[in-house]
């Protein structure tokens, strides 16, 4: 689902059977989805195995600021001043502090709760997010305040920060805030979509695509994780057209925006930071994608020395009935695409240069315009490669085994793709291939996506506590102080339990090597901190047969 169009694709046995494209009605996304679905004319709807949806519902609600406010309560503790970072929402700071091992430094002050909170919280419906610094190590204060608040008003919607179990108090707070704020909107959407599908007697489970390129059952999604699934879908679409182990640069050229991603030996690159959406920094895992404001419809403005490629669109290309020259006109003039009026394309180019209108010159100008688009794309590709190569390293082994530059190929898709292949091949110095069904690549990627799964354990055998990053689960460790095989089994069990909730098969899961940190008091080893994780990286269920 995009801002302007919504694509749909029907796939059977890795063969694309039908595709459809409808206008997105932003007021009624469920109806848009159903309309696209209907356009596919699927012969035997009831026998569908799987429906996957990638939606802009949450992304747009946040970016257009259509989300209800949440009362944000923070156990901010000492350390960096909280206002050193830009908070896009207001918050209330409460006393009570934990440290990095999850030890209580200062208990909360209950009399403060009474004074500060009670007046606001009798209203309905009220959304309250409670986040403590180091709550991912110990959720006690969050739980205590939650119990207290429920006592005041049982109908409050309360979200606690520790369920986003990664470090970063600031991002954890904003992630908890956003997820709670969009939850009503999402649940209404999910319910409506589920009933519309059920009404057609379709039993196929519905999944939603996440920012990390994985799918998850519609009822299990944490709504904020559905942001930016569009760019993720573009990258997955490329995976359906490549060998399993290829390394690719994926370029999806739209009308006004081009999305660029990297696939390394068959695995899309994950961003080392959480997603940024509008003014909000989050902990949402996302594929590393560069979105740059350039595309087939980018406006071209004449200047004294030639032309400028603007970062905005002023309607369609001149050759397609618009008022302003665009890269599409250049492509048409050079015969790289076959749609649009050839004479209008020439007129568009001529309008850039009043004096010289020889065919040689217009040819040169058109080439320069396309090269300018390729240049902008190449700059973004380089920046993405740099992000990958300069990923922070915290171990000797990692520094001694850096990411090696590998042979990339490039896959282009999207409306502007066809006219750009040659220019990109020249500029990126890689073989460039045009994707199949470039106009419905988003739907294709979503349809072929498989689940992702991560289970990251943090175990402190001295404190006898363990935590799971992805779920925020915190529990007591009763095993040995220096476990070895025991901790492997423990992580396996945790992962199996968690996977069962999402009905994910994790047989061929990838395991990170464990990090062992001996805890020493005096000169005696008294325990260990152990970090380990298993992953199911984003990928697709098969190759598309053409």
């Amino acid at each position, binding site marked *: 689902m995009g801002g302007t169009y919504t694509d749909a694709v029907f796939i059977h046995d890795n063969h694309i059977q039908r595709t459809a494209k409808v206008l997105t009605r932003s007021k009624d996304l469920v109806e848009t989805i159903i309309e696209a679905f209907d356009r596919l004319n699927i012969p035997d709807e009831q026998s569908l195995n799987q429906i996957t949806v990638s939606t802009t519902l949450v992304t747009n609600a946040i970016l257009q600021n259509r989300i209800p406010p949440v009362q944000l309560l923070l156990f901010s503790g*000492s*350390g*960096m*001043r909280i206002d*050193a*970072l*830009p908070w896009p929402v207001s918050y209330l700071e409460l006393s009570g502090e934990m*440290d*990095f*091992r999850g030890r209580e*430094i200062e208990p909360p002050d209950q009399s403060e709760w009474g004074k500060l909170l009670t007046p606001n919280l009798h209203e309905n419906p009220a959304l309250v997010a409670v986040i403590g*610094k*180091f709550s*991912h*190590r110990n959720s006690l204060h969050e739980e205590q305040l939650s119990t207290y608040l429920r006592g005041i008003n049982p109908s409050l919607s309360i979200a606690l920060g520790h369920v986003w179990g990664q*470090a*970063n*108090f*600031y*991002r954890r707070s904003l992630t908890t805030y956003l997820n709670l704020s969009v939850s009503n909107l999402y649940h209404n959407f999910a319910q409506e979509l589920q009933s519309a599908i059920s009404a057609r007697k379709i039993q196929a489970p519905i999944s939603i695509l996440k920012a990390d390129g994985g799918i998850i059952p519609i009822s299990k999604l944490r709504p904020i994780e559905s942001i930016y699934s569009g760019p993720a879908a573009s990258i997955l679409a490329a995976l359906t057209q490549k060998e399993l182990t290829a390394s690719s640069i994926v370029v999806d050229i739209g009308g006004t925006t081009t999305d660029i991603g990297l696939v390394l030996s068959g695995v899309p690159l994950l961003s080392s930071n959480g997603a940024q959406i509008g003014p909000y*920094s989050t902990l949402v895992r996302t594929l590393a994608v560069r979105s740059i404001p350039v595309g087939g419809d980018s406006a071209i403005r004449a200047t004294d020395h030639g032309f400028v490629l603007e970062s905005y669109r002023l309607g369609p290309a001149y050759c397609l009935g618009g008022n302003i020259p665009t890269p599409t006109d250049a492509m048409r003039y050079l015969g790289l695409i076959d749609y649009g009026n050839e004479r209008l394309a020439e007129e568009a180019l001529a309008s850039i240069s009043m004096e010289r209108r020889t065919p040689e010159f217009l040819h040169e100008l058109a080439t320069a315009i396309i090269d300018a688009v390729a240049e902008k794309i190449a700059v973004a590709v380089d920046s993405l490669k740099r992000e990958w190569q*300069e*990923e*922070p*390293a*915290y*171990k*000797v*082994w990692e*520094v*001694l085994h850096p990411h090696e530059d590998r042979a990339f190929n490039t896959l282009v898709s999207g409306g502007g793709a066809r006219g750009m292949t040659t220019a990109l091949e020249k500029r990126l110095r890689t073989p460039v291939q045009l994707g199949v069904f470039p106009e419905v690549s988003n739907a294709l990627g979503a349809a072929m996506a498989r689940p992702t799964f991560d289970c990251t354990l943090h175990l402190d055998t001295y404190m006898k506590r363990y935590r799971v990053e992805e779920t925020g689960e915190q529990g007591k460790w009763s095993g040995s102080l220096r476990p070895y095989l025991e901790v492997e089994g423990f992580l396996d069990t945790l992962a199996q339990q968690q996977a069962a909730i999402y009905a994910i098969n994790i047989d061929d899961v990838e395991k990170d090597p464990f*990090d*062992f*940190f*001996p*805890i*020493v008091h005096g*000169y*005696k*080893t008294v325990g260990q*901190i152990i970090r380990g994780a298993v992953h199911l990286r984003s990928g697709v269920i098969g190759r598309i047969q053409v």
Partner: protein
Amino acid sequence: MKRTGILFFPAFDWSLGDSHPEREERLLYTQEQLFEEGILDLPQIKQYSPRVASLHEGLRAQALFPSPEVHTDSLDAPLIAAGSAILLGEARVRGDIANGFVLARPPGHHSGATVWGNRGFCTLNNEAVLVNHLRARFGIKKIAIVDTDVHHGDGTQDIFYHDPNVLFISMHQDGRTIFPGSGFINEKGGPNAWDQTLNIPLPPGTGDEGYHYVLENWVLPRLQAFAPDLIINSAGQDNHFTDPLAAMNLTANGYGRITELLRPDLAVLEGGYSIEGALPYVNLAIILALAGEDYHHVREPKKLDRPVLSLAALKPYLEELKKQHQTITPRFTIQSKAFFPKGNWIYSPRSVYYDTEGFQETRHDYIRECGHCAGTVYIESSRSQSPQKSMLVRIPFHACSDCEQAGYDLWEHLQHHSEDSKSGLLQNQLHDKLTVWNRKEGLKEF
């Protein structure tokens, strides 16, 4: 925007031994604290990823004896820490950042001009490797190193003792009460660099107030007089009142203030082994101070409950120390060997103890007195119970032609006429050429 670079390299897979203070766990809680605070989300913070220093870069500052090859197996982590210092130093010199913090393990300031192994947890001297890199590659002339680790930065002092273009200042707990037992007021520099080394030993118990007083009234004026192009802070964190190996009484806030007063171009982590009680908070305070953020809200959980030496008690001590410092005059022994090129050669013998492995290094240092440059240095060094010597010949940056020639003559003699020498390094800083000689294998360029 004034940007602050951070290079965080905690070496989570490296230790000097299971329960050694320099172990995997050392920066684990610092990572927890920094990441939880969202330090990397501060718009002015830029994170850099580490790189490995080359042996060439290491040998520019230090001789690895008996040969670099002997050390290669144990150099991985030290070369990454040194390379990280170089990387961030280059970012500073290029103007990509206004200042930076090399938060890397292992430390380096006890590692000197000649290296036979690890001492005081250090194998390579990160600051020295950085400083000589910036001079060789960027032509930086005057650099000041201010060592605020609780231990005397004896390795750094050793490397730059004869160098008039590097001002070395070390504030530390009095060497009579703590490792390495040096850093007294009379150690003021070699004949060509007299007064370019300043040691300020402080009595155990000195706290924030006293420390800041010394900085403001002694260190900063000295820095200002030197007017360096670059200030590097060897930022050890073991002055903290919770440190298990020392007896000073500084707080995390106190460290923030040190950073604010010194305004270093680059801070480089040295020691500090209160890995839970101090490091997460001290590191945070240092970063905030570098980034121009308020650090006063940083608070370590444990309260300072030891008696702090009052400023009133410290002041007379400091006055006496300053008086001593002013009255000490250079007293050098002129002594040369038969084969030495012409000139006045100042001789000083030295003995260096390697605590990690428990052996002694015996050194005979000779420096050519020179009114034009830093002077050629000739060092004979041997490890206890080994009769064979390794030599370092250093032709300094900006060497005059006489000193340059003296260096070549010594190097020549070493290879062809010296019976008891086993190996050597020609550290030609003037032309950035590093040549290792070995009796068995001959010459090799690095």
